């Protein structure tokens, strides 16, 4: 529910400096006829709506330096981003959102697909998005709203996803990751290798899941399948009976006191884990890193059933056209050109164009984050703080192993309405 508007790190002075030139140009060309201020304020500005994942002051500063485009972040939670696209499509220019929300966004007609031909690096985008396999050729699980199912539209203004590649791309991929359970190895003191452990009575009162219904139920389904109770045709698109079954298992666990708390926001998950209130819970990679940077042992545990993955990318508001659309393309092209990708990789996410990101990273960084090799030197976060000491190995190993192990993708089900009602029932039980 919280929504903050981030300001980019550009001071008024630098903005004035950069716009002064433009203003002078405009004055010289005779564009100014009595209203000089209006023209000079028309700088290259893009309003960027998204979750905090891709938004960094460093990225916007570098973007301004390289392209002259000033990014104004509008930061919201995943749910609020979708809500805003639906209700205020003119309040943003560039949208950074997850693929699973496309099932809602595309039919609304509030977003515009981008033209693949205008994206310089489009052909270099990782095959994870385009073919559903890793660069090494491993097939990736396609349950849920896998990006390749919703990557293309049939036509420019079409509301139908195309099964084959077209030039109309719903979201230009930017960032993605493979999520799993986070654990406290110092408290659990034994190997954990299955999602089923989340409901193991051994961890009664010390487990937690994500309280975002569409994602929480996927984690729940991973658990149900791991315990051998049921095998879903598609965890990301359950039938009513499957939803009932999944929620029944979870409700029994809740009533038995299995869960300490459910979490909804990054900091909540960090606090639960760091304080020892929970020892096993669904988690996000940077949250695990955060707990670890507090000096507390925490592992982003690879599990034999695989990961639940998510991915996000860029599109524009339907209100964007002309010059502004050109800036949007310029920005997206810049974003894929390496700086931002390296920045995201260093946080433990993955960038869409691997080759450009690699060029912006040190070889030892690439080896640690992407190849699963022991760190040659200390690994530092983009802000320079120490993440891992030399010798550490990334949880889950290499890009191939982690992305190749993805079992399902965040999704919006056809029975979403029913599922939300059942989720409320689960909370009330």
């Amino acid at each position: 529910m919280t929504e903050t508007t981030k300001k980019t790190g550009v001071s008024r002075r630098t903005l004035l400096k950069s716009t002064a030139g433009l203003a002078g140009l405009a004055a010289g060309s005779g564009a100014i006829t009595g209203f000089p201020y209006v023209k000079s304020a028309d700088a290259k500005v893009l309003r960027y709506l998204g979750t905090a994942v891709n938004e960094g002051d460093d990225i916007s500063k570098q973007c301004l330096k390289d392209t002259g485009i000033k990014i104004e972040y509008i930061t919201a939670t995943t749910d609020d981003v979708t809500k805003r696209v639906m209700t205020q499509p003119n309040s943003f220019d560039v949208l950074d959102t997850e693929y699973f929300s496309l099932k809602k966004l595309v039919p609304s007609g509030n977003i515009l697909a981008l033209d693949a031909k205008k994206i310089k690096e489009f052909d270099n985008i990782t095959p994870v998005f385009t073919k559903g396999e890793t660069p090494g050729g491993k097939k990736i699980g396609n349950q849920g709203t896998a990006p390749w199912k919703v990557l293309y539209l049939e036509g420019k203004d079409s509301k139908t996803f195309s099964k084959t590649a077209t030039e109309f791309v719903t979201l230009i991929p930017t960032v993605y990751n493979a999520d799993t359970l986070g654990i406290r190895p110092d408290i659990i003191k034994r190997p954990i290798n299955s999602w089923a452990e989340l409901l193991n009575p051994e961890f009664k009162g010390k487990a937690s899941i994500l309280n975002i219904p569409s994602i929480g139920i996927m984690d729940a389904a991973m658990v149900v399948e791991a315990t051998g109770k049921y095998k879903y045709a598609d965890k990301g698109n359950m039938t009513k009976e499957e939803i009932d079954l999944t929620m029944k298992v979870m409700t029994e666990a809740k009533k038995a006191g299995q869960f300490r708390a459910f979490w909804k926001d990054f900091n909540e998950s960090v606090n639960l884990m760091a304080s020892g209130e929970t020892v096993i819970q669904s988690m996000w990679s940077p949250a695990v890193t955060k707990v670890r940077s507090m000096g507390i042992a925490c592992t982003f545990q690879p599990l034999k059933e695989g990961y639940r993955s998510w991915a996000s990318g860029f599109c524009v508001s339907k209100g964007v056209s002309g010059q502004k659309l050109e800036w949007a393309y310029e920005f997206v092209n810049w974003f894929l050109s390496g700086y931002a990708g390296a920045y995201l990789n260093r946080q433990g996410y993955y960038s869409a164009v691997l080759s450009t990101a690699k060029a912006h990273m040190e070889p030892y960084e690439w080896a640690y984050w992407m190849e699963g090799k022991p760190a040659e030197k200390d690994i530092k976060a983009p802000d320079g703080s120490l993440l891992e000491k030399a010798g550490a190995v990334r949880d889950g190993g290499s890009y191939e192993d982690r992305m190749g192990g993805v079992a399902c993708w965040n999704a919006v089900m056809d029975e979403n309405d029913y599922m939300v009602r059942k989720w409320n029932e689960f909370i009330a039980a």
Partner: protein
Amino acid sequence: MDMSEEVLQQASPGLIPGSGTARAAKPTRLSPSFISWLQAGPMMLVFLAFFLIPLVFVIIVSFWDYNEYQLLPAFSGRGYTDTFEGCIAQLPDLCTIAKTYLKTLKLCFLVWVITLFIGFWVAYFLAFHVKSKTWQMGLSLLCTIPFWTSNVIRMIAWIPLLGRNGLVNSGLVKTGLINHPLEWLLFSEFSVVLALVHLFTFFMVVPIFNSMVRIDKSLIEAAYDAGATGFQTLVNVIIPLAKPGIVIGSIFVITIVMGDFITIGVMGGQQIAAAGKIIETRVNALQFPAAAANAVILLVITFLIITMMSRIVDIKKEL
């Protein structure tokens, strides 16, 4: 809403004599009633624009249909029928909405009783035992301390205190009173009530204090002179005269707790149902008509409670 209208009605007669003197200095044709409408006007407009009209929209939308991505402006009772799903079929088991409201009402009642008890005595102390106005002011401001932090900070702050390895638990374990940490201290109904009381006692203190300072001290002296004990004075003089404050404070606390889902969510570990939480989940899933229907239900129930309370005390008369 009721209350503010009362305030308006109260405010206008008091202001008319002022306008009367203005008329004496400079004669105009404006009638006194027109002037009071004019004075109440801005507030009424604000109410109309930001409360009544949006409320009407909420009620209209609650009867619409919807799909995954848009509202369908056709009459549908789906928001309501979905909400009461299983209420008859599941009998004797309670349906989701009944369970949710029972839980919310229970929390609401507990918080109301405790804040009323604490709030009454804090106000009593401030009104009758603190003589200096400055001290009264200073001590009331102290009551606002719980509002100085955000919800997130508060959540972080409760864990080291009430958590499994928190101060309270480790203290109790060290003194040997308990062998294992008490799990129910945090993420439980206990912690929800504790946090809500901690936050909202202030809303009880202020109106009750306000009523108490207006009590004519000679009435209390008269009671003593007539031979009343301290307890008799309290029951027969102070409580009846502080009633408007008690009712206003109760309305504040009850309406806030009925609609709260953030504190209940954070302190209850998101495992305790709340009427507001259902609305939030629906809104987040873009099911606006269903959310609106739940909002209307919440409004009706809260309104019923408040009507019951104002039956007990006629605020209009007492103010």
